[in-house]
């Protein structure tokens, strides 16, 4: 698949939230990943997790026939490295960047980071595709969360039954948005851009 195809599939057809349900809990609670700082932390964490897991998987796990051990590599190598580097950088940059690196600590245990890293590693991509797929998956997830957040804000102000406001309204809206996104499936994108 071409690089444009990888970006479009990761953003729309295989959207982390709307196709895999990753981060559905956060989206239903109104989006913990709403702020810019958290978005950047999520982007950085997913990028690092994706590329590190791909390296470990390609150099160690696949040659040894241990593909199932990807989760162990994520939990015992990738996450500790990310947490250590983020706390080190938080001390170095001082108050300005401390909040950002603390968010990296928070989101590093998110199923969005783990899920996207596992998905891109199992696709059989090369390093450039892994980077593109990781970044565009987060972009797709953030776009979906932002869209649902905006719909939720409108629902809160509208005259609908109270039990439908909040989580239930977001989940039903997610169903409709997911239906709209499903128009752009992998085959369609492959035919359009190769």
């Amino acid at each position, binding site marked *: 698949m071409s690089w444009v195809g990888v970006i479009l599939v990761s953003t729309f057809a295989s959207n982390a939230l*709307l*196709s*895999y*349900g*990753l*981060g*559905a*809990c956060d989206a*239903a*609670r109104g989006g913990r990943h709403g702020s810019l700082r958290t978005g950047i932390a999520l982007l950085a964490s997913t990028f690092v997790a994706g590329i590190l897991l791909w390296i470990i998987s390609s150099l160690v796990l696949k040659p040894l026939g241990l593909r*199932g*051990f*990807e*989760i*162990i590599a*994520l*939990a*015992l190598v990738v*996450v*500790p490295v990310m*947490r250590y580097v983020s706390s080190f950088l938080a001390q170095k940059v001082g108050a300005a960047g401390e909040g950002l690196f603390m968010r990296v600590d928070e989101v590093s*245990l*998110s*199923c969005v980071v*783990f*899920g996207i890293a*596992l*998905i891109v590693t*199992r696709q059989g991509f090369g390093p450039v595709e892994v980077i593109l797929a990781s970044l565009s998956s987060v972009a797709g997830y953030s776009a979906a969360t932002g869209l649902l957040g905006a719909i939720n804000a409108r629902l809160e102000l509208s005259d609908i*039954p*109270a*039990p*439908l406001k*909040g*989580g*239930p*309204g*977001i*989940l*039903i809206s*997610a*169903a*409709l948005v*997911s*239906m709209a996104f*499903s128009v752009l499936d992998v085959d369609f994108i492959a035919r359009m851009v190769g």
Partner: protein
Amino acid sequence: MKSSSFTPNPLLVSFLGLCPLVATTGNFATGLAISIGTSIGILSMALFGRLSKGFVPSRLAVTSYLGFASFYALFFGIVLEAWSPVVALDLGIFVPLIAVNCLVIHELNRADSSKFSELSSTLATAITYFLLAVVISALRESLGAGTLTLPTPGFHPLRIMLASEGLIPVLAKPTGGFLVLGLLAFGWQAGSGFMEKFGGKQ
């Protein structure tokens, strides 16, 4: 125990642990498998957290809990693959993701402050999660595809034909997961509001 133990609060009010339910409950076999894996994961995480409280240094707590959860997910994946390779293949990334399921992470956060006597609420959460996942997956597959797939051992899970085609095909897709969970959460919150208004607070 009282009612709080058997309420689906973590799922339908706090919206914890939804991720696998959206993607895997379109099929009864995968829904049942993931609900068993997650429920046992919640319980074993709670037990591990309490048993290891005095032994693990606080700075290594997150890594050790996460390591335990990921070894559990790996073990569950191996057992599932031996039992039904097709179901394991269909579940894909969702078996390893049990390690970072929100409810499992929730137990990780609670482990420091909770006592053994509070395990009953964890047990209730696990049972509620299991029952809800089973009901949602049975509903979605029967209405969405007109079949009910049982996770029988071997390469060919038993598929019971209930109808020639699904009544509401969209229910078998991720869209259906969001829809069913949204409607269940709406029903739960409407019911809770009704009980508060007319039957006194639960």
